[in-house]
C-alpha cells in the first residue's frame, strides 16, 4: 500500500516539479524543500494532488513539512488517513 502511494506521488513529483527529469534520484527520505524540488506554491499543488488522488482532505494545521516533505512522510500520512477511513467504513 505505502509503496504504491509512494510510486504514485513520485510519478507526480517527477512529472510536475522535475518536468520529467529522471536523472535526479529522488530518495524516499529526501527533503523536497532542501533539494529545491518544491517552493511555496509547489506545496499547494502537492496538497491539491494528494487530496484529489487519495480522497483525503488536509486541514491547514496538517500542511506542515512533517507530513509532506518527503515521499516517506507523504506515504505515511496518506496511509494513516486512508486506514482510518477504511476502519470507519468497515
Amino acid at each position, binding site marked *: 500500500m505505502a509503496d504504491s502511494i509512494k510510486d504514485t506521488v513520485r510519478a507526480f513529483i517527477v*512529472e*510536475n516539479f*522535475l*518536468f*520529467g*527529469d529522471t*536523472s*535526479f534520484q529522488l530518495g524516499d527520505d529526501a527533503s523536497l*524543500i*532542501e533539494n*529545491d*524540488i518544491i*517552493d*511555496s*506554491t*509547489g*506545496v*499547494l499543488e502537492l496538497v491539491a494532488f494528494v487530496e484529489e488522488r487519495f480522497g483525503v482532505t488536509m486541514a*491547514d*494545521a496538517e*500542511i*506542515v*513539512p*512533517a507530513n509532506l*516533505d518527503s515521499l516517506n512522510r507523504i506515504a505515511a500520512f496518506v496511509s494513516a488517513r486512508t486506514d482510518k477511513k477504511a476502519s470507519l467504513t468497515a
Partner: protein
Amino acid sequence: MCGFGGYFGSGLVDAEVKPLLERMASAVAHRGPDERDVAVLAGAGLCHTRLAIVGLTDGQQPMSLDNGRLVIAFNGEIFNYVELRDALRAKGRVLRTSSDTEVLLHLYDEKGPDCLAELNGDFAFAIWDAGRRRMFLARDRMGVRPLFHTTVGDTLFFASEVKALLQVPGVEAEMDPFALDQIFTLWTPIAPRTAFKGIHELEPGHMMLVEEGRQAIRPYWSLCFPDLDARSRHTDERAAAEELRALLTDATRLRLRADVPVGAYLSGGLDSSVISALAAGMTPETLHTFSVAFDSAEHDESAFQEEVATALGTMHATVRCGEGDIATVFPDVIRFTERPILRTAPAPLFKLSALVREKGLKVVLTGEGADEVFAGYDIFKEARVRRFCARQPGSRIRPHLFRKLYPYLPGLNRQSAAYLAAFFGTGTDSSEDPLFSHKPRIRATGAAKLFFSADLRATLAGYDATEELASRLPAEFPRWHPLHQAQYLEGRFLLPGYILSSQGDRMAMAHGIEGRFPFLDHRLVEFAATLPPEMKLKGLVEKHILREAARDLLPETILRRTKQPYRAPDSQSFTGAGEKDYVREAMSVKKLAAGGLFNPASVTKLFAKSRQQPLSGFRDNAAFVGILSSQLWLETFTGSRLRASQAPSSSFGDRNGR
C-alpha cells in the same frame, strides 16, 4: 552620454583600421544618434557616437589635446566638471570648449590616472596617451556606464557594448557556460566574466593601463563598510538625516547640469518621488516626469505616480504596458541586454525610454540605487527575520513574521509556520555563511538549472557559482555587520550586473536616453555606508533615514508606503491568445536541441504547463524567462541573422543642437 570603442595593438593592417572603427561606431549608434567620428592613431584608434548633452556645439569626440598628444573617447558625464574646470583655469590652463570631455583630458594631463579620484560622475572612457604610447581605460565607481574588452593576439579591443566587439575579425559570439550558470544562480555573471566567452567587462571602480604588450587592471575605488565594533560618528539621527538631505540635494543639483532639459522617472515609490521632488524644487514648473503603468493591477502603481506628479506639479507622461507588449519588445530587449535574464522587468523600461525620446528629452533622473544604499530591498528584511528565527529554531511564532515581508505573494501567505521556516532555511543555513542573506534567493533561482542539458551539466561538473562569488569578497567582509554584508552583495554584484545594466543603461540607451542616479553619487554612497545599520533598516522598516530626510518633500501616503518591488508579468507575458511565433520557435525541440543548453523534453513540459495556466512558482517563472532569453541570445548573437545594431522602434530625427 554616448557610445565608443577602440583598439590598441599591431593586429590590424592600416587599410582595415578606419572601416573597422566605423563599423564599431555604427554598432553602438543607438547610444549616440547626434554625431559620429573616428580617430585613427598610430597603432591605435578610437571611435565615438555622440548624444550631445553638455557643450552641444563644441563637445565633439574623439577630442584631442595638443594635436593628438592626448585623445579621448568618453561615454557619460563628469557632473563636477564646472568646479574642476575652474580649478584647472586657476592653474593657468586654457580650455577651449564648454564640455566636460575637455576637462577630463586636462585633468588626466595634470594628474595621470590619479585624476579618477577627483571625478564625480558616471563614466567609461579611453584616453590615448601618445607620448607614453599608452591607452588608459576607466569606469565609474558603481558601474553605471559599461565598458567591455577582448584581446585578439596582442591587440586589445574595447567598446561600450559587446555588439561593437563582434565587428572585429576573429571575435565570435559564444555563450560562456560558466556565465550562464552564474546567471541561473545570481541573476548576473560575476564580472569581469560576461555571457560572451572571451569577452570581459572592466569592473566598476577599476582602471586599465595598456602599454606595449602589457595590460594592468586595478581598482581605484571600492565599496566598503566599517568594522562591526567600530564606533559610528553618526549617533544623532536628526543630524544624520540633515546631512543626508544636504548630500542628496547636492547630488541632484549636480545631475541637473545639462545643456538640454532633464526629466525624471517616477515609479510611485519613495525613491523616485524624493528625487523628483528635489528636482522639481530646482526647476520650478518645468520638470517632466515619466512612468510605466501596467494593465495588471498586481503590478500597477499609477495611482501613486499620479498622486506624486500632481503634488509636485510636474508635466507627467505615462506609457502603458499591456498584455502582449512585453512579448512584442522582448527580442529587442535581449539584443540590448546582451545577456540572458530571468525576469521581464527590463522590458517595460525599454518602452519607457522610447516614451522619453518621443517627448523630446534625452536625460532622466531616476531613484535607482536607494534600495542598495539605504537598505530598501525585501532581502535585507528577510535576512533579519531569518536570523531572528534561527535564534529559536523550534519557534512556532517567529516564522509568522515572513508573512509580513511578502504580502504580495499569496502562495506564501497561506503557509504554516513550519513551512515558512523550512522555505527560508532557518534550520539549515549557517549564519556564519558569508552569503547567508542571499541563500534562499540563490536556492530558488538555482533550482531552475533543472532544465540544463546533460552536455551543459557535464561542462559545469564540480563548478559552484556561489563558491566563486564567496571567493571574490574582500578580506574585511567577515568583520562587517550582517546588513552591510548583504548590502555589499547587492551593491557590488547585482546592482552593476543587472539593475544598472539590463534594467538601466542598456534599456535607456536603446533609445538614446541617459539615466542619472543621484543616490549613487559616491559621496552619498560613502556616507550611507558609515550609518549605523539601525538607521537604515529600523526594525522591519526599510530606508528609515531616507524617510526622515524627505519628510517635508512628499505626501504622507508616499512617505509611509512600504516598498513595492518593481516587477512585471513574467511567463504569462508569452502565452495565451497572442502567443508569438518567435516564442514557439525558440522553445521548440529543434531550436533547443540546436542550442544545446537546455533539455528539450523538460522545457517542452514547462512550456506546456505555462500554456495551461500561468506559472505561479518563482523557479518556474525564472526558468521560463531564462530559457527564452538564452534562446533569443543565441539567435541574435550566434544565429545566421546576426544583425548590426539598428534603431529599435522610434526613428531618430534631427536632434542636433537642441
